[in-house]
């Protein structure tokens, strides 16, 4: 039989030493794991950075290329504006004749026109006012329906008809027959003698058209009005036609790319180019058929000083920079102050 005669404290000290060693190993393992994780994460980060550093110049190049397109469009905004303005002006001269000519086939023969006018009522919409004469209330109704057949007509309104057709009045104490009468006329008497006198009183000297509505006059340039018993009728049409007028003054005086006030919708610059040249208005862009416009810095004797503002110089000779060229014949030479 063996007896452990060593004091208890000795075995406890041994166990504590082992625990300390184990704790140190545990601490070292955990710390080492943390360090490894840190190193791994830093490695991953560095790789990602390298990839980005490799891609960025290429991406920058692509963006720079894209900006070239935008820059080109911006630089030529005035060109787009000028072309749009010129085309709008040239096109506009045809719009009113085309509108009126297209309306004429829809004007019925019984409606004799006295005047036509049209005005823009917003983008893509116009109001046309027709003034003419017609005879009957039936024609007045038919005319509205006929005008509604015009393509692109949104609405038709009418005004001005003066009804002169007879109507049957109600019975009265003096008139138990109620013969048809015209608006404003008195009732036709029942008594034959009175009725005869009534009709005699209605009689007028026959005049026909003479003196009515300008008819019967020798001056053929005077517009003819309504014939007897005809009415002057105003028809107002709202139609989907664009009559908005280009405003050269506002457009040319505005900054490049902006839109003249009366121009309506600006023309797009097209495609993916970024729309830098949106609208109309703006100065002469290209150098025109002969040469550019005035150079930015004008010098004495500087020959054609390059393209005009916003110009490409196409179609015109490109001269030396302002102040470089020699003096043209008869001009003040450029020597003043070293070629202004």
């Amino acid at each position: 039989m063996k007896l452990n005669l060593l004091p208890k404290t000795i075995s406890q000290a041994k166990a504590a030493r082992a625990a300390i060693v184990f704790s140190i190993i545990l601490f070292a393992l955990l710390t080492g794991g943390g360090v490894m994780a840190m190193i791994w994460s830093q490695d991953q980060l560095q790789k990602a950075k390298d990839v980005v550093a490799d891609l960025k110049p290429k991406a920058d190049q692509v963006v720079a290329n894209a900006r070239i397109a935008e820059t080109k469009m911006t630089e030529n905004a005035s060109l787009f504006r000028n072309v749009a303005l010129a085309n709008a002006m040239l096109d506009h001269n045809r719009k009113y004749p085309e509108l009126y000519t297209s309306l004429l086939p829809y004007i019925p023969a019984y409606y004799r026109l006295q005047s036509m006018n049209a005005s823009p009522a917003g983008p893509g919409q116009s109001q046309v006012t027709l003034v003419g004469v017609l005879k009957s209330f039936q024609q007045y109704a038919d005319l509205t329906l006929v005008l509604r057949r015009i393509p692109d007509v949104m609405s038709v309104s009418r005004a001005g008809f003066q009804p002169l057709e007879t109507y049957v009045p109600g019975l009265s104490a003096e008139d138990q027959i109620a013969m048809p009468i015209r608006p404003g006329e008195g009732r036709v008497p029942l008594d034959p003698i009175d009725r005869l006198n009534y009709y005699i009183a209605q009689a007028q000297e026959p005049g026909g058209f003479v003196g009515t509505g300008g008819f019967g006059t020798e001056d053929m340039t005077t517009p003819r009005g309504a014939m007897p018993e005809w009415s002057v009728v105003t028809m107002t049409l709202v139609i989907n036609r664009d009559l908005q007028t280009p405003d050269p003054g506002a457009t040319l005086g505005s900054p490049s790319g902006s839109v003249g006030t009366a121009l309506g919708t600006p023309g797009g610059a097209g495609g993916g180019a970024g729309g830098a040249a949106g609208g109309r208005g703006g100065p002469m862009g290209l150098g025109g058929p002969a040469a550019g416009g005035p150079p930015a810095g004008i010098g004495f004797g500087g020959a054609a000083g390059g393209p005009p503002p916003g110009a490409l110089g196409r179609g015109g000779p490109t001269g030396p920079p302002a102040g470089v060229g020699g003096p043209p014949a008869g001009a003040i030479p450029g020597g003043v102050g070293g070629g202004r």
Partner: protein
Amino acid sequence: MKLTRLTILSIGLFLGLTAVAFFVFQHVLPNIEETRNYRENAQALRAEINKSGMAKQRVEDAVTLIGEKADEWNAIMARHSLPGSLAAGGIDLAVNEYQLTVDARRFRNSVQSQLNRQLKYGGVQVIGPEIPMPTDDAASVLASYFNYSSFGFPAVLYNLGQVTVTGTFDQIMTHVRGWSNMPNFLAVADGLQISGTSPNMTGTYNLTIVGFIQSERVFPPIGGGGGAAPAATGATTPGGPPAGVNVPGVPPGQVPGRGGVGRDEEE
């Protein structure tokens, strides 16, 4: 006091976890987050790079579009711009501002003649509008009459107001359409109204004409003459020779800046 084994192990574990926590929260997690950001960035960059073809196409499209518009503009200007000489119906702006006051009046008469010719287009009868007379103020003629300050380039703009023409319906329609064909100018006839009894119709409309001037150069203001032109022309260099005085290279008795081809030809 003696520490038990459990206590010692707990301390070791605690310290180890503390170290791990330090590395994880101080380094690992931020690195992972940053790595993810960089990867997303790389993905975005790749997306941009993939647009390389589109970007090139955009540039090509822009160049093509600009070229087309330039051709279109040149075609318009070939017919609807004012020549740079008086003889051809335009005006030469490369003359000094005093000469320009003289030439501007000749130019105005030339424009009026061109307008009168166009007003009769279509066979209508017209009570014609008049082109306004240019100012005789040398300092402002370029800026005001030729709109050099407001447009930044020389062009004349005439709002001629209401024009009344008489003729048949077809004549009036032809007349109004004809403004698109006016040589040397861009004209716009607006607000056409037709009235009267056929065949004696009356048409009224508002007329505006614009003349872009093909000017190779514009003569700068002669020293201290006026305020508007220098700012407008961009001739920022101050000074300059007084009118006709001691201009180098100009013989005595001759006027500087009278090099206008059209004016010379006219004379």
